[in-house]
């Protein structure tokens, strides 16, 4: 956790109770909290206060959260986590496809939100590219194209490998079906998600143990969950 240079988090939500417990939760994690109660105020503060991350509620009284997201994305790439409701799959997909980094379904436990915030801050675009990824029992070396699960080397097909790299590079984030399809198969076969299902099932069979690493977000996409890394797994190779 970054303590020397505290991350500043902007909460855009019209409910005072929600802002209040979020402030308490975030304060306790040493984040600096900025609050906005309307969409317009949120956009204004996003520009003026330069937060490191935005928590955006979609149901705002003045303008829809989607609109706030779009307007902020016109000039900023700061991570945005969207608060949405159950059954709003369209909203989830829309916001993810329009630049939201993640979403959390209300009602949520603060622990869940904090985990997403950490993941989003970790994946900031400012972070330099590196070629070794570790997540739980999984190790991926993109330079040498090596994949290990619980220390054992795994043979993957080209597509399975691309899929895994995509997931691990974005670990902690939800990737929509469309996004994955576009990244792996290109923009022309975006709706043929049956391939994705098949490859995903094969990939999971090859690499997964308990606890699971790849979570299905029904109706939305996939997320690679961030797990405590077993640092020794990768080191064996080198």
């Amino acid at each position: 956790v970054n303590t020397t240079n505290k991350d500043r988090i902007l909460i855009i939500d019209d409910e005072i109770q929600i802002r209040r417990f979020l402030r308490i939760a975030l304060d306790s994690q040493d984040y600096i909290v900025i609050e906005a109660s309307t969409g317009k105020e949120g956009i204004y503060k996003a520009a003026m206060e330069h937060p490191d991350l935005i928590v955006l509620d979609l149901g705002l009284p003045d303008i829809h959260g989607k609109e706030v997201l779009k307007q902020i994305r016109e000039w900023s790439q700061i991570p945005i986590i969207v608060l949405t409701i159950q059954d709003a799959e369209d909203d989830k997909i829309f916001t993810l496809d329009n630049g939201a980094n993640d979403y959390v379904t209300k009602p949520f436990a603060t622990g869940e939100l904090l985990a997403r915030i950490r993941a989003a801050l970790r994946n900031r675009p400012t972070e330099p590219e590196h070629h070794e990824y570790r997540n739980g029992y999984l190790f991926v070396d993109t330079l040498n194209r090596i994949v290990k699960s619980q220390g054992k080397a795994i043979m993957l097909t080209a597509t399975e490998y691309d899929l895994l790299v995509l997931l691990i590079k974005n670990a902690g984030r939800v990737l929509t079906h469309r996004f994955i399809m576009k990244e792996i198969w290109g923009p022309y076969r975006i709706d043929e998600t049956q391939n994705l299902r098949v490859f995903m099932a094969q990939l999971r069979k090859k690499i997964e143990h308990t606890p699971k690493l790849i979570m299905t977000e029904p109706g939305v996409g996939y997320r690679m969950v961030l797990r405590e890394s077993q640092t020794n797994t990768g080191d064996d190779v080198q």
Partner: protein
Amino acid sequence: MNDELNRPSPDQILENIKHDEERRHKGRLKIFLGMCAGVGKTYTMLQSAQGLQLRGIKVLVGYIETHKRAETEALLKGLRVLPRLQITYKEREFNDFNLDAVLLEKPDVVIVDELAHSNIPGMRHEKRYQDILELIDNGISVLTTLNVQHLESQKDTVRQITQIEISETVPDSILDRADEIELVDLSPQDLLVRLAEGKVYLPERAKTAAANFFTISNLIALREIALRAATQHVDIQLTGDMRSKGVEGPWKTGERLMVAVGRSPYSEQLIRWTRRIASTMKAPWIAVYVQQPGRLTEVGNVLLQKNINLAQELGAELVTTTDDNVAHALIRIAKQKNVTQIVIGKSMTSPLVDLVHGGSLVNKIIKQSGGIDVYVVQSDMSSKSPQKKVQVNDTFKSSFLPQYGIAAGVITLIALSCFFTGSVIDYRAIGMILLFTVSTLALFLRRGPVLLGAVLGAILWNYLFIPERFTFSITSLSDFLMLIMYFFVAIVGGSFTARIRRHELTIQQREQDTTFLNNFLQKLIRAEDQSALVRLASEEIKKQFNSLTAIFLSDPTGKVLQKVHSESTLQKINEKEIGVAQWVFLNKKLAGRQTKTLALSELAYFPLLGAQGIVGVAGLLFENNKSLARERETLLLMILQQFALCIERENYRAIAEQLKISSQSENMYKTLLNSVSHQLRTPLVTIKGAATELLNYRTGADPNKRTILAGDIGESADRLDRLVRNILDMSRIESGMLKPRLDWCDIGELIDICIEELHTQIAQHEIVVNITDELPIINADEVLLRQAFLNLIHNALIYTPSQSKILIQAIHTELGIVITIADNGRGIPSQDIPHIFDKFYRSGDRSQSGIGLGLSIARGFIEVNGGTISAENIPGGGAQFTVTLPVKTVDKENG
């Protein structure tokens, strides 16, 4: 007199109240009546309007003809004048009264000058008085002017006095509709002075006629007519007053008149005459149309309709009957209706034709009339419109011309073949042959052609066969007698046969109609819904009348007319036509082609009147724009009436259904409220209690207690969340708006997610998942299926004791993917199995929280994905839910 008898009966009182009610909703009509142009009606009307405006009443000048007279125009000051409507008709510009603008503006009082004006074709109504009646029906009061010579019943009198034919007339009944009539009177001398001063406006072309018209004697006569009309109106108002006060009814004379209506132009005069007599006698009168066998020609039909309309407009009660024998029918109706006096025209037929018919109509009626008085009225020959006469004859002839040809041809052929067979046959036998031919022809042809055949036969027989041959001279007395006898037998026999034949046709037609109506009714009754009714009616109309039909039905509120019903035989209807249908719907009157309202429409529109009100409108498009024969119209109206009644019945059924559903859902709501209020409160009580306890300093300070309380709050919140989600899911299913978002999904993956999500609750149970690797991916809504499986697994968890085992299996079969969720608990009580998926149904054991939605949601979501679900008990103990989901084969395995 006994007071008891004089008091108005409840029915009478009711009628008076109804009368008053109608009046209250309707606008008032005031007519400024004058004897002729120039007496100052418009001027008086405007004065009266100024007076109304002063009293704060909103007056609008809808249409006015000031003829640029300064003093009249001065009176327009301060009144709002409505711009006139611009109409193009036959490439000429006209301007006229803008009815719709007034209806839109809804003033208290509107001024519409010249009541008798005829509208330009293409406007809604044929005549301005119809515009005015519509205004009154819409609650707008009207001031208008009328010259007495424009009254329908005065037309003949005025013509006799002034020798001027009046073309623009209004029915006398308009005076009865008027609430007030103000007679604008001027002595003839004064009028002539005004005329001389040039104060009377006359159109250019009328200037020459004016010299003949404005004579002292004419004016005196017209003035008398005007005065009489005004007095009569006062009389009617008085009787109205008398009725409400229980004074004996207006028909104290007990007289009742009857007039026969036909298609002859003279019929019109008879009708007017009868109305005049009836109104002076204050007697009710009946117009009877005796429908005779055979069809009328197009023109005959139009004339007949015109006369019937006239009679109705003049206030007659119309009776239609079908009979071959007119005299008999008239006497029958007269006796049924207690008629005291019959009015008939002097016969115009020749004595010979009368003889064939067994005497003239007049004679027959007089003979059979018994106690009924009979007026025989001389037709006024001068009034006949020669143009019309020619028209009638033309059509008449042309339509029967082939028949005349056949008659002449057959007779000539028979005569010639006899002639060429030579002297084999005796000339007397030839007479018999010809006679036989005429009688045979009568079986197929109308009377006219048969008579022609008879005459032609007589001539040919005489010329070709009777000695001296090839001359018309007859030498022997017996031959002469034979010819005479031949002639009479042929004519009488032929015409009788023809009559019997026609009679048969009528009966046949009537039988056909009756059978048709019966069948039609049977079919209507069997029709299962509105669409079936519409389809049936429009198809039957097409069969019977060769006419396409556009049927518009009202919406369930009965206030708005919907678009053309999709089952109608006519679908393409333009905006203008829809407007006509709307008008018919709002005014509940006929309109369109063949009527006086919006006559330029392509279709004839009939209101569909049920027992309680209008249920829709039927628009009929007749082939080649033909008009509908009167007797066919009766059939059409009956069809439409039955159809309307059935539609109404169907509407009521739908309403009853709706009520049933809403009462069902009301019950459901009660259950829901009872259940939900309990289920919502429990977690709320926990949250509230735990939160207040956390605020308590001592409890809050104890980390163990704090953890327990916070955990309780979290759990209660989850429970509330589940409840809300269930209710929302259920309402999504109920709304019928639930559409699955199809995408590819993996059942194994789905089950894994569910178990992951329920892991905190699974802790007390053992879950075994047994899913084959080879399951195909299916095309379904992942989110809905996930919720369905969550609910099923959750159900298994809460209805089994802890440590129970739950086995989830999925296999691929021919039916699709079959997923079973089985437990080894107590199983489902057998009486609950059939209801287990019903919403709000909860198994007898209520110890578990929940409102009985979980399983019905699971079913709803699985069914929306094309799957099925069932529940059963396993023989060894425990319950098993089986879900079957269809599999669509995926073309490619790899990408």
